[in-house]
């Protein structure tokens, strides 16, 4: 009871602070600053029609590399904790609906994920969402089967190769154009084509493979640790 009251007081105080601090804030009508520069010059600078991908992969490519590292360390921590301390056995058997769906859908889901990854510079998408979609197909297969996934050399090697590719593409720009992760070591091409926008499609592929294998590894270790004792 006292906990609820304290929580309510803190939440109300915070909302009062936020509301009072934005009271002189008005709805903007024009873009300013960095965002304006990105929308005006993004296509010329990077060749990517999708400006979000241009920012994520080209302008802020180094941040994305750091983000991949964060995801990698988190998934490593999850796998490490769950393998050091086994907490369960015997996965719960799937219902017949899940088992049946897991026999049909994963192929289509993987295809859709690859589409999202490869069209990241043309339409909403890119490596992170596409990789998550591919990993969801893996999750569906795992939920539909009755077995515990074993150790997979395949997943870990894909993860390593994808991470290495990202770094090497960065160093390629450093060696040829003197800038780490410079996008235009490959020609920008004509914006809107599938093969355009420099190395953005290649980096999207690397990120997609890395995210898919990492999330699959996390799901697999959840599956190994879960279930009834």
């Amino acid at each position, binding site marked *: 009871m006292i906990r*609820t009251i304290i929580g*309510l007081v803190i939440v109300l105080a915070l909302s009062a602070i936020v509301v009072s601090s934005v009271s002189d804030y008005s709805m903007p009508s024009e873009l300013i600053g*960095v*965002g304006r520069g990105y929308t005006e010059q993004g296509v010329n600078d990077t060749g990517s*029609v999708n400006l979000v991908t241009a920012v994520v992969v080209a302008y802020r490519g180094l941040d994305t590399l750091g983000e991949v590292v964060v*995801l990698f360390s988190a998934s490593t921590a999850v796998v490490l904790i769950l393998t050091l301390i086994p907490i369960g056995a015997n996965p719960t058997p799937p219902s017949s609906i899940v088992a049946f769906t897991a026999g049909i859908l994963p192929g289509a889901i993987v295809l859709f994920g690859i589409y999202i990854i490869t069209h990241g510079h043309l339409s909403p998408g890119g490596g992170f969402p596409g990789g998550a979609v591919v990993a969801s197909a893996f999750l569906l297969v795992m939920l539909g089967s009755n077995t515990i996934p074993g150790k997979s050399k395949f997943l870990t090697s894909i993860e390593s190769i994808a991470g290495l590719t990202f770094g090497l593409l960065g160093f390629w720009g450093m060696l040829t154009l003197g800038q780490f992760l410079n996008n235009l070591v490959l020609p920008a091409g004509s*914006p809107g084509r599938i093969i355009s926008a420099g190395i953005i499609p290649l980096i999207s592929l690397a990120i997609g493979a890395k995210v898919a294998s990492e999330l699959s590894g996390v799901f697999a270790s959840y599956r190994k640790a879960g279930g009834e004792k």
Partner: protein
Amino acid sequence: MTASAMFYWSLAVTALGLVLIGLWGVLTRKNILRIALAFTLADTGVNLILVWSGFLPGRSAPIVDSSVTSMVDPLPQALVLTSIVIGVAVAALFVVVGVLASRKSGSADIRRMKELRW
């Protein structure tokens, strides 16, 4: 207040509401998995605030097209993409640690996890 302004501010109120509900859940719930859920709810609200900060009513998504004349700010959307992925990673770790702690103390109730106190 015009319709677009109402839409604009209702987005802000929704986002702030999500953050506050999540914070309230983190402060008051006792089941550690519900705390994790409330945490991800607050995370979603923060992401929505960030996307909202680059949003201009009546403009289209930041994808350059011959028919597009004006678009919203692409930078917050790109940062939120980062934030979502980090949020997933943190939530995955949160759940694992929560499950481990609850197996160790025999219950998901945080009041029974004595070793978390100092």
